[in-house]
């Protein structure tokens, strides 16, 4: 079979990214233009500013990626694009550019779900083996997914309220830890001890998660200590919070592995960069002989490499979109 080169486009939030991936596993070139510095001065992503920056940069990022790969559009087999979920104004730029390219160059257009992208980031590390359990942890998602084979996604559990990344950001805010909060909480956690009494989130028989109670407990703890005039140790608070989060995530993940009798676990999403989650799952997987794959740090945050990787499998399975592809702010993984 001929090699398949997928050009991926990702613009669902605040990164404009284009990548070329060969056969769903080999990164040829990637360009990621992050707007993080701009949004940092507003304390979070401002959707209208994000959309404006995507339009300004989209063609330059496409050109730079092709230049980096020493390829032209003629060498590309198909164009994959994140159609959702994400910020609608941001998604529209990537989807519109992708449809335009597909039309001009008469290339197949392949729609990719953002979370499928995060999952397939793992295929860039090593070939994914099935069946597997995927733990998807990000600012918008906390899901446990059973994959019997390529591109088959069975959600077995998810968050009932806040996504894990969201909980990190809110805890960071209340503890006056600057944006972006999640990575800094993780860093502080490594310098602290689990000294604060915080509740264990939703420790039941389901595969669902709930972080709002834990989040509220952190907020109350900080306010109470402030009223008493006590200083809160950011390091210890971060460590106590992270320990509860990591414990429940890994407990339910390992139970899913056991119940579904799989030997492969992958972790996906921005929070897959979290050192606590990575080390705890590694320890547990080593003990029970489970193959664990986590993406390199550069593939944890939003990028088009993962979209092109997922796009390869969507393409080989015959998934296509017309030029009327719609961006969707929300859409279940399928």
């Amino acid at each position: 079979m001929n090699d398949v080169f997928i050009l991926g486009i990702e613009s669902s939030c605040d990164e404009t990214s284009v990548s070329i991936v060969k056969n769903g596993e080999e990164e040829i070139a990637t360009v990621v233009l992050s707007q993080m510095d701009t949004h940092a001065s507003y304390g979070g992503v401002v959707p209208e500013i994000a959309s404006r920056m995507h339009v300004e940069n989209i063609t330059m990022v496409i050109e730079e990626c092709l230049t980096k790969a020493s390829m032209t559009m003629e060498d590309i087999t198909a164009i994959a694009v994140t159609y959702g979920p994400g910020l609608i104004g941001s998604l529209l730029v990537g989807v519109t550019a992708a449809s335009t390219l597909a039309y001009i160059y008469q290339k197949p257009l392949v729609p990719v779900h953002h979370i499928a992208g995060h999952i397939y980031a793992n295929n860039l590390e090593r070939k994914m083996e099935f069946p597997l359990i995927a733990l998807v942890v990000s600012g918008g998602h906390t899901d446990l997914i059973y994959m019997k084979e390529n591109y088959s996604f069975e959600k077995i559990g998810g968050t009932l309220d806040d996504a894990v990344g969201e909980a990190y950001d809110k805890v960071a805010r209340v503890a006056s830890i600057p944006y972006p909060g999640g990575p800094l909480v993780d860093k502080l956690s490594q310098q602290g001890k689990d000294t604060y009494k915080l509740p264990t989130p939703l420790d039941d028989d389901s595969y669902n998660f709930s972080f709002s109670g834990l989040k509220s407990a952190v907020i109350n703890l900080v306010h109470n200590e402030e009223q008493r005039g006590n200083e809160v140790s950011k390091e210890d608070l971060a460590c106590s919070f992270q320990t509860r989060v990591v414990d429940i995530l890994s407990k339910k993940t390992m139970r899913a592995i056991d119940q579904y009798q799989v030997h492969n676990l992958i972790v996906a999403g921005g929070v897959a960069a979290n050192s606590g989650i990575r080390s705890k799952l590694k320890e547990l997987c080593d003990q029970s002989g489970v193959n664990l794959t986590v993406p390199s740090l550069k593939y944890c945050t939003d990028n088009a490499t993962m979209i092109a990787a997922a796009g390869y499998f969507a393409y080989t399975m015959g998934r296509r979109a017309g030029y009327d592809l719609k961006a969707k702010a929300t859409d279940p993984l399928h």
Partner: protein
Amino acid sequence: MKSLFIDTSTFFMNISVLEDKEVLASFHEEVHMDMASKIIPIIEELFLNLPFTIHDIDKIFVVNGPGSFTGVRVGVTVAKTMAWALKKTIVPLSSLEFLATTPVDTKYVIPAIDARRGYVYAGVYDRSMTVILKNQYMPYDELKSYLAEGTVVSYDVLEGKTTPHPDVSKIIELHKDDNGVNPHQLNPNYLKLTEAEEKKTKEE
């Protein structure tokens, strides 16, 4: 000269293919939803009935604002991606100037687009299309001094409005010799900062 004209700045979408100033094929209809997913199929359809393809276009004219932020982005994204791919240049056009090509019988023509909370994007032109008041984001009331001798041309500003009948041939004729812009440099002209930026500017 073959050209493609794109205007998605208001809900009245206009996509036209021209040979010099003659419109060969055109889509101009109200599109209130999903302009982004409709635009490429519309362009594809227009070329189906023409003796040449999108690759034979010499120049792309795009209305880059002011108007609906999302709408403007759709047109600009298509235009710059297409121009980059086809190695063509882009001529940006003003949505207000395009509205001002509507025939009126007053001294001035006042194109306006509702920008909410009493504000409009507007400009004032005389009948030879000379700019009397440059395009800007302004309180509607500030246009009053032109109203006696002018006609407000707008789809959405209610007071004393005339429904626009913009003329693609005329706007292309006016700008046929404009220098094209490199597609990377072609961006929307919103005429207004985002609310977040306005708030920040005020605080500073």
